[in-house]
């Protein structure tokens, strides 16, 4: 048993009593203590809570109680999900020290399944960003190269996996915040179908786009976690009241003979790094070897996805973030008994929000203003419909669609922080999936020749057909593993102090 094992291997060791949940959690805390000063994946460690949770699992196991498959396996939780009495900051100063009085549905499900929540991971403030540089608590570093970004907004979650600080993590994905970090850290990340996982307790950035999902080092691990957190929740009106597809069986199947896989023409070419395209094409060749049929498809409206996204997401965020007003929770600035409530609200929001958050609030407030609504928000919604139609058309011809996850490998910290547009382009290939509410997965498909950094391969499946991406992902992963001879993370340089 090693912390480099996969979650399913840890689960097996636990069930055979080769290791206790407490021991396993402690091993991970040791690794965190050794490497997180360099990686900075975590914002908060709930060691006490996690160990008592682990102890409970061990007691139940000793008593012969039937446990869920992942019982006792540790997990890192993105700091955007509420966990009762545990600080939830969303990477923002405005929520510093806020301890929610309730568990998000995802956390309830994790606790019920006996999954051990080690702590909360770093993220771009309110999930706005693609590098985790927008965290008010400092950036997270990519374990492949500490001078580089781990992706964003869920850079803390993906880095914790790549640094072997946790075998599983929860991310949230509004425009690529699970998939792009997975791509640049050589890990697996899945954005389920919108409505597949409850958003109750996910602090909203953009309600119609946000979706929580599993992050792991293998497709099967992601599937096991997916199975735990997915399903209808009456507390979330947008949650889908349908059976969760059997993603675990799909991840194990490894047979994609005769499947039709569409390569989206618009998600390649200009702006895509040469090494990224090469690795993507090599993966396509593997799929052909596995017996899949490759079809080129055109999604002409994807061209407008990024522009429309940057109207819809800021519009919703401008309204969602209005509640951070110092009145009922969180930061309060300037309350000297003289200033008015309005002045205190202003000072608090001025001090509590970072630049990118303010930029998007201003953008969204403007886009929703009377006289501009139709031209901006209204048009963006129309584009959204067109993107859905593009997907619908494509899915009449193929079972899944594929593309590179991100146009480039991990860039240097600070390289794009003063150029928001360059930063936004990172999500060009992931955003269409959110706009259409369908499922998307990123898994590693190799290291780019130019920089030896991981490249992500994106698989997109129709709504509530999430099993399809696990099927294709599982088969591709197995083929690549046998080609490489070892897991991709074994190619990464060893972190100082790491086990």
């Amino acid at each position, binding site marked *: 048993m090693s912390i480099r094992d996969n979650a399913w291997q840890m689960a097996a060791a636990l069930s055979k009593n080769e290791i206790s949940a407490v021991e396993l959690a402690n091993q991970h805390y040791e690794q965190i203590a050794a490497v997180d000063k360099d990686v900075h994946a975590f914002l908060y460690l709930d060691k006490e809570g996690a160990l008592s949770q682990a102890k409970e699992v061990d007691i139940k196991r000793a008593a012969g109680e039937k446990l869920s498959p992942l019982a006792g396996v540790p997990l890192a939780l993105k700091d955007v999900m509420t966990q009762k009495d545990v600080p939830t900051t969303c990477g923002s100063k405005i929520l510093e020290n806020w301890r929610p*009085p*309730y568990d998000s549905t995802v956390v309830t499900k994790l606790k019920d399944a006996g999954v051990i929540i080690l702590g909360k991971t770093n993220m771009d403030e309110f999930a706005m960003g693609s590098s985790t540089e927008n965290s008010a608590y400092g950036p997270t570093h990519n374990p492949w190269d500490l001078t580089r970004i781990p992706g964003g907004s869920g850079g803390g979650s993906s880095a914790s996996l790549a640094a072997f600080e946790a075998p599983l993590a929860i991310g949230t994905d509004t425009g690529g915040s699970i998939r792009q970090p997975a791509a640049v850290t050589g890990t697996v990340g899945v954005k389920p179908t919108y409505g597949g996982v409850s958003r109750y307790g996910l602090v909203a950035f953009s309600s119609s786009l946000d979706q929580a999902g599993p992050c792991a080092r293998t497709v099967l691990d992601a599937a096991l976690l997916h199975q735990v957190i997915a399903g209808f929740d009456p507390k979330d009106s947008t949650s889908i009241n349908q059976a969760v597809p059997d993603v675990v069986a799909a991840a194990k199947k490894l047979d994609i003979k005769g499947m039709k896989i569409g390569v989206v023409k618009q998600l390649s070419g200009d702006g895509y790094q040469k090494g990224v395209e090469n690795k993507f094409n090599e993966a396509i060749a593997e799929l052909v070897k596995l017996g899949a049929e490759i079809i080129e498809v055109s999604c002409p409206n994807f061209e407008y996805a990024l522009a429309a996204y940057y109207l819809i997401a800021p519009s919703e965020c401008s309204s969602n973030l*209005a509640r*951070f007003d110092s009145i009922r929770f969180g930061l309060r600035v300037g309350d000297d008994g003289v200033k008015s409530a309005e002045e205190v609200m202003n000072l608090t929001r001025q001090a509590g929000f970072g630049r990118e958050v303010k930029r998007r609030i201003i953008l969204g407030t403007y886009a929703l203003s009377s006289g501009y609504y139709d031209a901006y928000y209204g048009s963006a919604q129309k584009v959204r419909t067109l993107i859905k139609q593009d997907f619908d058309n494509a899915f009449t011809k193929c079972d899944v669609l594929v593309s590179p996850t991100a146009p480039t490998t991990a860039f240097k910290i600070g390289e794009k922080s003063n150029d928001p547009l360059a930063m936004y382009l990172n999500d060009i290939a992931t955003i269409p999936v959110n706009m259409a509410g369908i499922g998307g997965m990123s898994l590693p498909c190799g290291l780019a020749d130019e920089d030896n950094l991981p490249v992500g391969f994106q698989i997109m499946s129709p709504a509530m057909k999430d099993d399809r991406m696990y099927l294709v992902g599982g088969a591709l992963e197995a083929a690549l593993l046998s080609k490489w001879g070892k897991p991709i993370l074994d190619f990464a340089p060893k972190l100082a102090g790491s086990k």
Partner: protein
Amino acid sequence: MTLNYDSALAIYEPTLGLEVHVELNTKSKMFCGCATEFGAQPNTQTCPVCLGLPGSLPVVNKRAIESSILIGLALNCSIAPFSRFARKNYFYPDMPKNFQTSQYDEPICVNGFLDVDVETDEGNKTFRVEIERVHMEEDTGKSLHVGGATGRIHGADHSLLDYNRAGIPLVEIVTKIVPNTGKYAPLVARAYVATLRDILRSLKVSDVKMEQGSLRCDVNLSLSKIGSGKLGTRSETKNVNSLRSVERAVAGEIIRHANRLESGEKIVQETRHFLEESGETRPGRSKEQAEDYRYFPEPDLVPVVPDAKWIEELRTLLPEKPADRRKRLQTAWAVPDKEMNAMVNAELLDTVEQTVLLGADPTKARSWWLGEISRIANDKAVSPTDLMSVNDVAQIIELISKGELTDKLARQVVEGVIAKEGSPSEVIAKRGLKVVSDDSQLMKAIEEAIAAAPETAEKVRGGNIPAAGALIGAVMKLTGGQADAAKVRELLLKHLGQ
């Protein structure tokens, strides 16, 4: 020159518009499971959802949708097959999310009407008030501004916030403009709110207590010069909290507008507050720098798509319309308009009907409730139904009709019941109020009366029947008022050979 109400209306035609907010009486809030009980300890009926805590999400209360559809159906509206909630964005400390979840351009009910009866110089006249929309929204919390002179946020020392009310379901009922009401505008406005309140009460969807704020009315009013055909600028008077205030606010605004217009001033489009004491309004915030609420569809909720079958089921649940019921009762009881209006205005129609259903004569039931009992209730500043039950009143009326009580005795029984001496029969027993119906006992009293006034008796014997009145009076006195006067008269005349 100052215009009074009549001179203002000689020059100007008023146009009304009414917005009524109704708190639904659902057990739980609009978007969460919290209780809605009125008057609970502050901030005890709250949860992450109605406090707008980060991560919380709304779920629509199905009962609130049902109530809204019932209201729409009762107001002759079309029920939208697809409607949505939107977010109305503005900052205010008592609004947890800093946006109000409210229906906006896609309301649940549209295009209805309500006919209201108003007493005019030519008798009762029906005015049709057209309904533009009925939509659902959530209430805000309550702010209490402490210190400062005005009770408003400006100048207050500090403010207390109670979020118990935050998220209580509200239905807003908006009329189209109501033209051509002339001098009856205040009465039409009042009758509209009163009729609406009756309908909502009959639907059992709200407590409709104006004094508790479960029914609140905003009055929009504008004037146009008679014959100009051009609508004037309107003012919106907020939170007019009684029927009488609705009437006064309309009349007051007509006079204020007319005088401003006559002196060449413009009407400012603004929100005004009604002042209960003076019947005047004072300006609130001006709408010239209209707030931009940045409405957009609420992404956390799915559209409301009521099943057509469900709507038809709800239609069958609609109770008889209060106006129809009134007409039916008026015909059945053969009551003139004036007395019917009196019963309705006194809010005793239900009570009288229940009394009649227990077998009482309608005229008697009405006269007891609106007469003696109302008089006493007035003196005590309580409601008549707080004093007597319909059972008690029906029983008393029955005893009168059987001849066991006279009206005079019955008044003593009422007095006894109100004094909590017991049920009518207990009061009768305790006070010994039974009518003397024993003929021999009456005859004894008659003979005594004749003996005391033989000359009067002679006159009666001689055919002067009206002279018998004095003798009957004497008999009543002798029996302590417990005799039935008609019976006494019959026996007396017979005894004197008439």
